[in-house]
């Protein structure tokens, strides 16, 4: 009877450990503030359109996902797509998160939050100074 109860407790303990391993994760976050996603021409009119955000996410097994140009472009395009005629994201928070799950699963997340703006490039009169 005691042996049976002991066996049950051990199995329950193992299940708890396995579940905590399965659902626990470790996230490393790194971020910075970026002024502009694209070059802003001095000979342009820049008009803010409102707040926007973008996200990109990839999960891999064994080897953590690498930050690629495609990923960096996708997160910006995702944020730009939320405002019609937006060309550039200004003053945005850029956060990179790497989440490590048990059993060698990794998720890399890119998040941006900033101001979408429309940029109309023209020509300024720079011959008029003293």
């Amino acid at each position, binding site marked *: 009877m005691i042996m049976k109860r002991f066996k049950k407790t051990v199995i329950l303990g193992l299940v708890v450990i396995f579940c905590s391993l399965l659902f626990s994760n470790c996230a490393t976050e790194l971020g910075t503030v970026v*002024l*502009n*996603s*694209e*070059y*802003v*021409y*001095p*000979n342009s009119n820049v008009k803010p359109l409102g707040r926007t955000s973008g996200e990109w996410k990839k999960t891999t097994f064994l080897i953590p996902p*690498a*930050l*690629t*140009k495609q990923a*960096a*472009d996708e997160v910006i395009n995702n944020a730009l797509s939320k405002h019609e005629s937006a060309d550039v994201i200004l003053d945005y928070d850029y956060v990179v998160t790497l989440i490590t799950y048990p059993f060698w699963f990794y998720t890399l997340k890119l998040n941006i939050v900033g101001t979408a703006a429309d940029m109309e490039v023209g*020509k*300024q*009169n*720079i*011959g*008029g*100074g*003293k």
Partner: protein
Amino acid sequence: MKKICILFAAAILFSNCSQTFYLGKSPQAHFTYPNANVEPVGQVTGIYKKTKLFGPPPVTPTVQRTAWNDALSKSNGGNVLINVDTYYKLSIFLIFQTLTYRVEGTAAKQDVGLQNIGGGK
């Protein structure tokens, strides 16, 4: 046995390992004056390559400037580089380590003038 050893040594000798890292996008590589007109002149690529024994060649401002200048030299009158994607590649062959620093972006022509700012105090 001797043949296998020679084959193994040759495989190690002629194999190499290289990895490319994307370092990100910069809106501009050079300062552009607010009192300027900037006009894009085309897409360009610039490369800096250096091999060193034992350790990887370091990335210094000289490396960056050489790659940017290489890109600009391929443009039609461009003097600034904008929307620049940067890649770092390290190739290892025995004791030789080669750094390839590559930039891709838009070459632009900056024409600096004077704005009329005489209206303020």
